[in-house]
């Protein structure tokens, strides 16, 4: 029907030729490679985390930490005071902080990956909706008016409630505009400003003690990690990660095909965005209510993961969890070593390393991420 058109792409002329050209194994091979990387990453994360357990005063070696873990696993009780000291130190001091760093970092990175994919924006983080300043405000309120100490229930509760409330407001308002990414981001910016100003106001009226406590909270640390925090995050991740993983193809569609095309691919875009933002917000708010504000893991973790394993969320989501967890574990380890016996809070180390890394990523990228 169309005359003299020689711009067609090359085309096989028979079914046999078609089959000869089709290499349906290529995609699966790539997937298998990614799966291997994922498993490898898990192994590395676990090994490195266990290795960091030996950092700290008290002359505890890696052998000590491993035998403690084994003893706890098998229910063996310590027989000498020395063993007791070692086991208690490892189990009550080292493991909770490593656990909080690992799980908190994983939670923040997964939340970051979700935000970046759902909002189709590589520069967003879990704090885009204003959760961090809102949580800081809640924590400040608790410190000022509820006499909240650093890891008291009031403090954790204040930060959690405030952070979630802010996210609910942002998401609720955005839902009136079909949850468009731009709307979410702009609302997040507005609420960030609001809560930052409110917190500054609180700092203005705070006395020195409270002020110091507020500032300390914003640094972000796992120094006060206690077991209930680790357990809480573990339970949340055990439920959230599979939930999120099942929707990874929906996230792919939203992130790479755009809202319209994703809908045409059968993805209920607004609903998926709402669900997953809810999960991301919960992960973020709970984590920072335990640790204070830890900034760059949620932003840089997903990018590093993407560089290594690619942008396909089926692999990116779990890999971000590993990268984020490892980053925070390492940040805490560095903070414990670099100025020992003083402890540099993990959130500060994280920001000091994360900011240049982020700058580097921005400058080095080609056309897009």
């Amino acid at each position, binding site marked *: *029907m*169309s*005359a003299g*058109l020689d*711009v*067609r*792409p*090359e*085309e*096989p002329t028979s079914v046999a030729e*078609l089959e000869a*050209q*089709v*290499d*349906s*194994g*290529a*995609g*699966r091979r*790539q*997937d298998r490679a990614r799966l291997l990387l994922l498993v490898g990453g898990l192994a590395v994360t676990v090994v490195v985390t266990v290795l960091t357990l030996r950092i700290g005063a008290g002359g505890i070696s890696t052998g000590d930490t491993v035998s403690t873990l084994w003893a706890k696993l098998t229910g063996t009780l310590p027989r000498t005071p020395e063993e007791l000291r070692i086991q208690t130190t490892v189990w009550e001091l080292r493991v909770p902080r490593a656990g909080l760093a690992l799980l908190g970092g994983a939670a923040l990175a997964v939340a970051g990956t979700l935000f*970046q*994919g759902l909002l*189709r*924006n*590589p520069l967003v983080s879990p704090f885009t909706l204003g959760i961090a300043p809102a949580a800081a405000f809640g924590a400040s309120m608790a410190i000022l008016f509820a006499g909240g100490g650093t890891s008291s229930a009031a403090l954790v509760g204040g930060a959690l409630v405030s952070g979630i409330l802010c996210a609910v407001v942002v998401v609720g308002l955005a839902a009136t505009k079909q949850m468009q990414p731009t709307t979410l981001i702009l609302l997040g910016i507005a609420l960030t400003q609001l809560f930052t100003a409110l917190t500054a106001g609180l700092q203005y009226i705070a006395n020195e003690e409270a002020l110091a406590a507020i500032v300390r909270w914003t640094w972000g640390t796992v120094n006060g990690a206690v077991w209930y925090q680790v357990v809480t995050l573990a339970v949340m991740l055990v439920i959230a990660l599979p939930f999120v993983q*099942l929707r990874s*193809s*929906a996230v*792919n*569609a939203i*992130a*790479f*095909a*755009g809202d*319209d*095309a994703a*809908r*045409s*691919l*059968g*993805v*209920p875009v607004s609903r998926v965005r709402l669900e997953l933002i809810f999960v991301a917000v919960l992960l973020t708010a709970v984590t920072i209510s335990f640790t204070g504000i830890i900034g760059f893991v949620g932003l840089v973790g997903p990018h590093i993961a*993407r560089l290594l394993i*690619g*942008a*396909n969320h*089926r692999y990116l989501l779990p890999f971000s969890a590993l990268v984020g967890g490892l980053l925070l574990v390492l940040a805490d380890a560095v903070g414990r070593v670099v100025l020992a016996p003083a402890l540099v809070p993990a959130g500060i180390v994280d920001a000091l390393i994360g900011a240049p890394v982020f700058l580097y990523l921005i400058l080095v990228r*080609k*056309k*897009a*991420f």
Partner: protein
Amino acid sequence: MSLEIRDLEVAYGKRTILHGVDLTVERGRLLGLLGPNGSGKSTLIKTVARIVRARAGTLEWEGSPLGDLSRRDLARVVAYVPQSIDQSFSLNVRESVLLGRTPHFGARPRARDWERVEESLVQLGLSDLADRAVTELSGGQAQRVLIARALAQDPEILLLDEPTSALDLRYQLQTLHLAHRIAAERGVATVVSIHDLNHAARFCDEVAFLSGGRVLAGGAPGEVYATDLVRDVYGVEVDLSTYDGFTEVHPRIKPERTVRRTELVEVAS
């Protein structure tokens, strides 16, 4: 064996875009949707793909209402090719095409899904580019990726939303040629919205003119194209002729109102 659109009314809030559209698209045929900006071409296409909800009217495929299908099931019938991709991140070409299998695979892609992807890549000549990031491709290549993705969906209805607006001449022709071949060879009811009347005449089996949210005329280009129709739809005076068996449209340009004398000389010759 067709897509029947009856009395379709679509509104965004208070603004009604489509005022009762009637249209039929036959299986295996390429329908060109013509009309000025704002006439509702994109809205019509998005409504068929259920990206936008209709306020009234019916959509039927082979006698059954499309509205009865779940979103996912609908995605196995209707494929939508957007105008462009919003690319902040990028998958490689192969994974991009795999997105088209989303309504088909459950927890993870299976062998069958990968096979369809690879077939689509071959058919669209993308095999060599399969591992490249989509952001690195030219406009025409990226367009082919979008079409390959839609094909991988194994659709029975294929909708292309202004696929040629951002392409140069070569790729415009290539895309339309492809759309026609897909319709003819795979028996897919294909709709493409398009601005160029001549391209539409050359490649489409049928055309429909949308204006102000209504279909003003529909049918084979040779039968439907008329000077007063074009005047009503576009507000442009044209002359019609036949070239190589296809109807062609020549806009009549009034020199005093639109162009300067010197430019007119080049245009006229």
